[in-house]
């Protein structure tokens, strides 16, 4: 009964199909809302895209200067795919921080939406947004440097991105709770975590150049495996079937980190409700 307060709604248990439709509609709410926001902030979106393209070009020029085609491709892939992974991570990790800043956190948490439904919506939008960004940058850089990607295995790159996204989503969910638990410093901690992933994942260099202890840390970053797999697929044309050593760590991370991320988020929500940290601050 819409728009008519006072009447009790049907309280019988809804069917599975009804429940699923309602949950998916809930997820779509977050996708659509973010699309609305992108449209309203179109000037900033354009600026971010220009910055991402310029950043990728600048880094790739290092390879051009050294007249090393392999290095050029390696840097380009690092720039483009790190941009994608950081977008996916950032959107999910900022789920709470963004709403806290807007002042809508309490409203969203009061709504009859399960947390996994919210996180699914945020995740789907992040992947969609990241793919659009990545496609634009890839096209611009390919045309700019006149790259020959005829031998590239795009299927390998796509599979690595999909599996890698799942791992990043799990980490992003866990990072998202930081602004929930630490009202002021949480967003800063998320930013630091993202920076550390950039440092240890071999985005612009091989992880072999890192000190031994940092190489150990790099094993726990999904970006390490994604970038290695994408590079081998796009530069050497390696099929995904030959990259099991990169695939299995990502699959394990995804299987472990996504349920863990949802669970951690739920625990953090409970903590925030116990301590009153959902309340708007600032």
């Amino acid at each position, binding site marked *: *009964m*819409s*728009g*008519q*307060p*006072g*009447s*009790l*709604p049907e*309280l019988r248990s809804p069917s599975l199909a009804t429940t699923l439709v*309602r949950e998916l*509609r*809930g997820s*779509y*709410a977050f996708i*659509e*809302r973010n699309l*609305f*926001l992108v449209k*309203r*902030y179109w000037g900033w979106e354009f600026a971010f895209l220009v910055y991402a393209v310029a950043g990728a070009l600048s880094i790739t020029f290092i390879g051009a200067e050294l007249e090393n085609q392999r290095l050029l491709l390696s840097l380009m892939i690092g720039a483009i795919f790190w941009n994608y992974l950081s977008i996916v991570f950032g959107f999910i990790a900022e789920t709470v921080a963004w709403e806290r800043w*807007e*002042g*809508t956190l*309490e*409203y*969203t*948490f*009061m*709504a*009859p*939406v*399960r947390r996994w439904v919210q996180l699914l919506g945020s995740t789907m939008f992040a992947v969609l947004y990241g793919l659009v960004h990545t496609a634009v940058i890839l096209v611009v850089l390919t045309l700019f440097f006149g790259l020959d990607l005829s031998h590239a295995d795009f299927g390998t790159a796509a599979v690595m991105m999909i599996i890698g996204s799942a791992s990043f989503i799990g980490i992003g969910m866990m990072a998202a709770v930081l602004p929930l638990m630490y009202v002021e410093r949480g967003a800063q901690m998320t930013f630091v975590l993202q920076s550390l992933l950039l440092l240890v994942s071999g985005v612009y260099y091989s992880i072999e150049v890192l000190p031994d202890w940092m190489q150990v840390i790099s094993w726990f970053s999904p970006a390490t495996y994604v970038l290695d797999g994408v590079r081998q697929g796009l530069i050497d044309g390696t099929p995904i079937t030959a990259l099991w050593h990169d695939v299995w760590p990502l699959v394990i991370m995804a299987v472990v980190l996504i349920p863990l991320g949802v669970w951690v988020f739920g625990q953090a929500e*409970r903590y925030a*409700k*116990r*301590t*009153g940290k*959902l*309340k*708007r601050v600032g």
Partner: protein
Amino acid sequence: MALTLEPHQPETASQPSETLVAPVDRVPAPAPHVRRPAPPRGAVPALLIDHVTKRFIVGRKKKSVVAVDDVSIRIERGETYGVLGANGGGKSTLIRLVSTLLTIDSGRVEVFGHDIEREEMAVKRLINRVSVDAAFFKKLSPFENLIYAARLYGLDAGTARRESVAILARLGIAESRLSRPLEQMSRGMQQKVAIARALLTSPTLLLLDEPTTGLDPRSKLEVQTFIEEIRDSHDATIVLTTHDLAEADRLCDRLAILNEGRVVVEGTPEELVARVAREHGQPPTLESVFMTWTGRSLDDDTEEDDDDDD
């Protein structure tokens, strides 16, 4: 649109009512107040708050502060129940507890028989809340915010759009204004959109946390009239916190005064003013009731509004 409200002349885009400094004589007079008969006591109350306590740990010294202290309230279906109290008295904490935004330390809360901790999702579908600060994505338009809210509650965009137009027209906001960013609207107008958003989801229990605070006289009256219509026409159960004693008197069937987290007095406005005159020799007004049971004047309280909403 299920609401059957009086036709309303929406403001034009060039002449928004809340941007006018309305002369007092242009503010429509409130309708003569007639107290409704008390709703019958049902087997299942709309809201049952049973010995609820909520503490917070605050400051570097980890001091324990009791925000809500052993509060028990029973509200019948169709009742409009006012919660008055000084800032820090526990009003907003109580509303947040019922809104499932806080967990309860002890006691229980039931909404139409549903325990808010064990059946949280069922309770969430029955309630909505309007807070003192209209919480929106300010860059988005009212339509975009309302469609987002509608989808969260399982409605489709078309229904949301149709009903938003009707509800907001009744509150004096023309359709032509609904596509512009909310940040371009005055606070009064934003608060009206917040009320429309709450009504859109058809709450059976509507929690209004100081919904008219900070509104100009015309907007305040429009919102109060609308609440009155909802109350009278649609059997809505409303919990209202307010600092406006005239508003409480006009809208509420019963009142409770919270002081330092405890319910210090409860009753109909008539009962309370009679009691303050009889037992304390004070003038028979709600102002006297407030001062007597909170130990402070309303002016003392409202001066602190800006930095404290409990």
